[in-house]
């Protein structure tokens, strides 16, 4: 649908063709006068009929009709006795005139129609040729610049003006440095309606702005500047409409080519990154597995146990580093599923060597399921539990509590250890590579908490730390509960 002035200006009637028709009849009369010296009068009639047909063929319907009348009149005046008079002595000739007029009119009109159709066909062919040329050029365009050039060099001349392609930037705004009136172009882009000269909107403007609309959306604006040229004729209007559709489709195609290309690059990048990550992961875990396993063979000795502990610690650092790399890379995809929080806590507790520390878990059974990436979230919990074991004495107690209020779910991990050293900024612990004390004897690079924060925030939640009274550390995780999927209840049997 391209709303554009529907009135098609008809070609103005040209009165000079009537003069030509009369002149042709006069010329024929002269010829006929010469022929009459050799041929019979009835043969001369044919010359007039031929003239009428040729006039109609050349100059159209009206000229043909006039020629028919003039031819009959000339024949009567100059050749039918008494000559030089419209009088007719032999009534036979009246019948001749009538017949001649009818035949002249019919052949004239037929010839004129033939001509009109030929003209129409030629115009159609010209239009088809123009369209085909532009379509061919557009089909090989791979960039917006190619399309703009086709507008300028091909379409412009066909419409007797200057045609400029205006395209919005990525932010859907028309660039202000571009051609024409940015404001009008922006309006046309947003409304999908034409504006400017020859339209209902801002007709005083010197240029016409036409939307390039595809079934999905308006992709650009075509600016047509024709100066003082005549309004577009029917043929040019038809062409313009066809060009609008062609251009819109070409722009859309170029757009999708770009999108496909970018997607491919993104997928390639992600595949490479994943391949790299799993290779690094494999290469680091293989020696760790061997070290840990061999140490296990050494029996229950203290040295062997220390090696096992360090290997475990190293393993957690590797996990943290891999998580960090994965989260840092753009567009991390969380594997979100509905989980029971106590299950995750249990799984993380089982994965952390807590020694002789007591663990008190208070998670209400009616806590709703929560949507999260279990692998990553388990790493958060393991980091918190691991921290608790690193910074508390062996007889400390760990409290894990959960509850929900409104749309928030809170998980609190506390210990009754010595807590954070006095005077440090607790919230700064979540910054990258921050630790409670510099160069502490406790291993770790401070990656755990910053990573935990990033994982929790990727879930749309928050994590904070506070001091616990009378002593100890407290970590709070807040998550949105969301709308858990329904589970069909069964009848209790």
């Amino acid at each position, binding site marked *: 649908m391209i709303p554009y002035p529907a009135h098609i200006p008809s070609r103005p009637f040209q009165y000079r063709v009537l003069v030509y028709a009369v002149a042709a009849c006069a010329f024929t009369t002269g010829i006929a006068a010469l022929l009459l010296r050799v041929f019979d009068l009835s043969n001369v009639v044919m010359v007039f009929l031929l003239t009428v047909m040729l006039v109609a063929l050349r100059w159209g319907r009206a000229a043909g009709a006039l020629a028919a009348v003039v031819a009959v009149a000339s024949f009567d005046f100059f050749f039918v006795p008494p000559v030089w008079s419209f009088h007719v002595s032999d009534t036979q000739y009246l019948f001749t005139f009538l017949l001649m007029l009818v035949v002249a009119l019919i052949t004239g009109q037929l010839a004129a129609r033939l001509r009109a159709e030929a003209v129409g066909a030629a115009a159609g062919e010209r239009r088809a040729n123009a369209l085909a040329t532009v379509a061919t050029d557009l089909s090989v365009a791979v960039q917006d610049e190619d399309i703009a050039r086709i507008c300028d060099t091909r379409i412009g001349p066909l419409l007797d003006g200057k045609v400029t392609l205006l395209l919005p930037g990525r932010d859907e705004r028309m660039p202000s440095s571009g051609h024409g009136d940015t404001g009008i172009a922006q309006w046309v882009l947003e409304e999908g309606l034409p504006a400017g000269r020859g339209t209902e909107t801002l007709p005083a403007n010197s240029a016409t702005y036409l939307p390039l609309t595809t079934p999905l959306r308006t992709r650009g604006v075509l600016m047509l500047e024709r100066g003082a040229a005549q309004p577009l004729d029917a043929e040019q209007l038809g062409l313009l409409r066809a060009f609008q559709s062609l251009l819109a489709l070409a722009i859309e195609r170029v757009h999708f080519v770009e999108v496909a290309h970018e997607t491919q690059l993104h997928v390639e990048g992600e595949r490479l990154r994943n391949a790299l990550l799993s290779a690094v992961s494999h290469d680091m875990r293989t020696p760790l597995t061997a070290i840990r396993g*061999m140490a296990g063979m050494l029996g229950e000795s203290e040295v062997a146990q220390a090696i096992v502990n360090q290997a475990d610690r190293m393993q957690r650092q590797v996990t943290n580093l891999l998580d960090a790399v994965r989260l840092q890379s753009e567009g991390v995809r969380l594997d979100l599923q509905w989980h*029971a929080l106590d299950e995750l806590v249990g799984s993380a507790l089982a994965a952390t060597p807590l020694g002789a520390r007591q663990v008190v878990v208070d998670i209400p059974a009616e806590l709703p399921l929560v949507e999260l990436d279990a692998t990553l979230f388990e790493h958060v919990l393991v980091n918190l539990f691991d921290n608790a074991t690193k910074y508390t004495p062996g007889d400390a107690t760990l409290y894990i509590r959960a509850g929900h209020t409104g749309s928030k779910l809170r998980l609190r991990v506390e210990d009754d250890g010595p807590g954070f050293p006095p005077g440090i900024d607790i919230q700064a612990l979540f910054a990258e590579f921050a630790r409670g004390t510099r160069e502490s004897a406790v291993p770790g690079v401070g990656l755990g908490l910053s990573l935990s924060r990033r994982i929790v925030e990727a879930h749309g939640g928050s994590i904070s730390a506070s001091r616990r009274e009378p002593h100890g550390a407290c970590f709070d995780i807040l998550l949105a509960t969301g709308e858990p*999927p329904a589970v069909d209840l069964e009848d209790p049997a």
Partner: protein
Amino acid sequence: MNKPRILVVEDETDIRRFLRLALEREDMTVFEAGDALQARIDAASRQPDLIVLDLGLPDDDGKAVIRDVRGWSSAPIIVLSARESEAEKVAALESGADDYLVKPFGVPELVARVRAQLRRASLAGARGQASAIVRFGDIEVNLATHEVARGSEAVHLTPIEFRLLATLVRGQGKVLTHRQLLIDVWGPGHASRSHYVRVYMANLRQKLEEQPARPRHLVTELQVGYRLAGIVESS
């Protein structure tokens, strides 16, 4: 009783060596294979009682080896996975593996898993049908009468809860994936609703575990499935 015959398939020499040492110390006969080709040959010629298989083999996918071996052998298969991807473990279990260990793992863990799987296999082989009464911890399950007792007290389970428990019991300590549990308990139409299993497992834990958040028997294999641990052999 004959020494159990274990086939270890692992491409890293050092890991293979420690697996061999650890298992031989437990009085087992160990055969080693370094790639999938050798693994297929040994699995057929050595007739192992159990296979420990690394998923990342140089010449073929470990899952393809599992499927091949499962075609003609019911020997338990324990998968070693260094991979982060839980989907990989699920795929291995659904190809026919019985349990998995994530690298790095400790010797006690390895030995415990191997022993559990050997016991499971010998039970299944000896009687064909497991006994109707199964015990774990202080829980007693009667598969025939659908009665469950905790200590001396009867525990009331809904039909679905019982079906879930019975499926885990029949698994005899094998890791059952969410998908396998959903198909067994709810039917094939529910295969993708893993939150169903989570909700009903939570119920079961509330009724059967002392500390539901630190389960001793109804063990979660995160992102993979569940396993019933600590089944006592009925006398």
